[in-house]
């Protein structure tokens, strides 16, 4: 008998530890759920962490209104199956709110920031658990697992608290909150291997399917009612999503992958990171840091 623990089991144990710390250290926590693969893994980890009781966190979806239909129906199915308490905060509502000035309607990605901060304040959430990983973006690589936000929801990367061993300091003043990232040390490949091991269901858009697409700045985007296009520029391709975001900014990948194993094989020879086709990250070298400082996920 060897007493070694498998790497995925160790990552799982460390993430479960973090989720239980959130439960113990905060009073009103939510788990951000987009229907994407990382949040699906988070839900499974939270199930394990508190079994046989149900997940003690509210589930929060920041809805840009520009969704892949498949993801929304998947979300509703999971919420129903696990009997979870879903809160939807919508960008649409913010835009329609006459009291709030949203000048930049063109960019719903940025509008997620005030929507998220508003719902955190309104619901009095003191911790929001997210699926961010350090390998996906280099600003995230600098962020703590327990990441402090000031009264205005802002992140200050230069004054982050030291985080050592597995001791997570969630102390804060009233009105401040934390973002918590239990998947910090997971890579995209770890996520897929875990989904495969646990046999987790994922939205169909992660698998290859035929879809009408258009090309924008070298990126394939799904044809939808939310973007302008000329009918003659639309063509059909076998594509899949590697990340799930707003339908107007999530680039599609040409792919024939129809199973999780196909996806794993495809990623292991890929030249480009998963966010390589996210138009929202391409804005500038500092775009993620600028958004995060203001309160982005």
């Amino acid at each position, binding site marked *: 008998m060897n007493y070694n623990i498998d790497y995925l089991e160790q990552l799982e144990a460390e993430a479960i530890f973090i989720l239980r710390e959130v439960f113990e250290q905060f009073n009103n926590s939510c788990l951000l759920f987009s229907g994407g693969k990382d949040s699906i893994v988070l839900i499974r980890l939270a199930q394990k962490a508190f079994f046989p009781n149900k997940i003690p966190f509210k589930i929060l979806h920041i809805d840009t209104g520009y969704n892949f239909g498949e993801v929304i129906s998947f979300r509703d199915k999971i919420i129903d199956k696990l009997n979870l308490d879903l809160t939807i905060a919508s960008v649409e509502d913010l835009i329609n709110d006459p009291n709030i000035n949203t000048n930049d309607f063109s960019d719903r990605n940025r509008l997620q920031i005030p929507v998220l901060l508003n719902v955190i304040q309104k619901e009095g959430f003191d911790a929001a658990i997210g699926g961010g990983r350090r390998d996906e973006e280099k600003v995230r690589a600098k962020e703590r697992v327990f990441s402090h936000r000031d009264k205005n929801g802002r992140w200050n990367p230069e004054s982050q608290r030291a985080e050592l061993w597995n001791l997570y300091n969630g*102390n804060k003043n009233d009105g401040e909150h934390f973002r918590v990232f239990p998947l910090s040390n997971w890579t995209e490949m770890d996520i897929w291997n875990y989904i495969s091991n646990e046999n987790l269901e994922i939205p169909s858009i992660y698998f290859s399917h035929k879809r009408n697409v258009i090309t924008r700045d070298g990126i394939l985007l799904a044809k939808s009612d939310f973007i302008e296009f000329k009918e003659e520029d639309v063509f059909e391709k076998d594509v899949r999503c590697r990340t799930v975001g707003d339908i107007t900014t999530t680039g599609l990948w040409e792919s024939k992958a129809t199973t999780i194993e196909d996806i794993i094989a495809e990623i292991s020879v890929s030249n480009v990171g998963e966010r390589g086709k996210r138009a929202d990250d391409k804005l500038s070298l500092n775009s993620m840091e600028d958004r995060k400082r203001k309160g982005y996920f």
Partner: protein
Amino acid sequence: MKNEKQLFRFTTIGSVDNGKSTLIGRLLHDSKAIYKNQYEELENLKSLWHNDQVNLAHLTDGLKREREEGITIDVAYRYFSTPKRKFIISDSPGHLEYTRNMVTGSSNANAAVILIDAANGLDEQTKRHTIISSLLRIPHIIVCVNKMDKVGFKRQRFEEIRQDYESFSSKLQFSDVRFIPISALNGDNIVSKSQKMPWYDGTTLMYTLENMYFSGDKDLVNCRFPIQTIIQNNEGKYLSGTVAGGIFKKGDKVLVLPQEKTSTITRISLFDKEYVEAIPMQSVTMELADDIEIKRGDLIARPNNKPTVSTDIDAMICWFDDNKELEIGNDYIFFSLANESICKISSILYKLNIETLHRDLDFGKIEANDIARIQIKTTSNVLYDSYSKNRKMGSFILIDKTTNNTVAAGMIR
């Protein structure tokens, strides 16, 4: 079925000038952990190049200020994987003022990779880092003598550096120190064996990292299960946490502390899986035969093998706070795996000079990045083992009650 792939954490030590980012870049590149788009982004930023080479530090210098000032402010985490292991590198900046980053980067490391420039030999930074590795009880040290190409791949130079390092580190508590002559730039002894140093009969760096035996570093003897959370419903009480030491088996007689109540483990599980035994680092839920009043911070051990239960703590600390010095008599929050308690510093015994190991009794004050031995008095009982026996049971942080900042990291003696 247990998969044989394990998670291995190591910290890299040495400055950019010692070729650290070249080395990391090579490990990531050769294990295909860098994507082409990330590399191209770097190549395009020629203003950030270092000595005509792409500076791989910028792969993880994610903050605007780091890129603008060409410095690494914070510990960076990098990931790569081989068929045998998943690796997490914690890469900390090496300047004196960043001692706290070195401490942070070393806290969970299974090994430290120390880079020494073959032409320059040991420098102050190497020594400082080595002492911190020793304080943090990193079990394995891999000394890479880099830039062997600059010294004609000569064995004699390698042996000189090895002797220097051994005579310096003999005062410290390391049980496993290895030396590898490398050239990170050209890839000698990184992944494949160097043809230019036939006199070296050891293994390459990658082989060492992939095959180093570290299962024995875990404490499989002293059973410690700190209760993290208690899940309760009509059917029962599920004591949940991560095993910090020892092997717990179903049917074992156990002792619940600090209550000193004995009971028996009736079930060990997690979600849909039931286990016959639980091993260190495993996350489980335990059920006991008796309904004992129990709370977060209590601990399950074995009747004849208990941790210390006390309000007095003797520890080495690294002070972190830039704005305030350590103050005797001030209230801090003592926070460890199993416990949280208000505490006061009762005395400061000495400040450690991390370049000479000298114990400075006439230190004035303890400020950011200083390392000191102190005595702490907590207001309620704390359960702990010495850090040298169990890193999880012997580590703690101090939190400032007014700013909520983590102001110190501590290792219990």
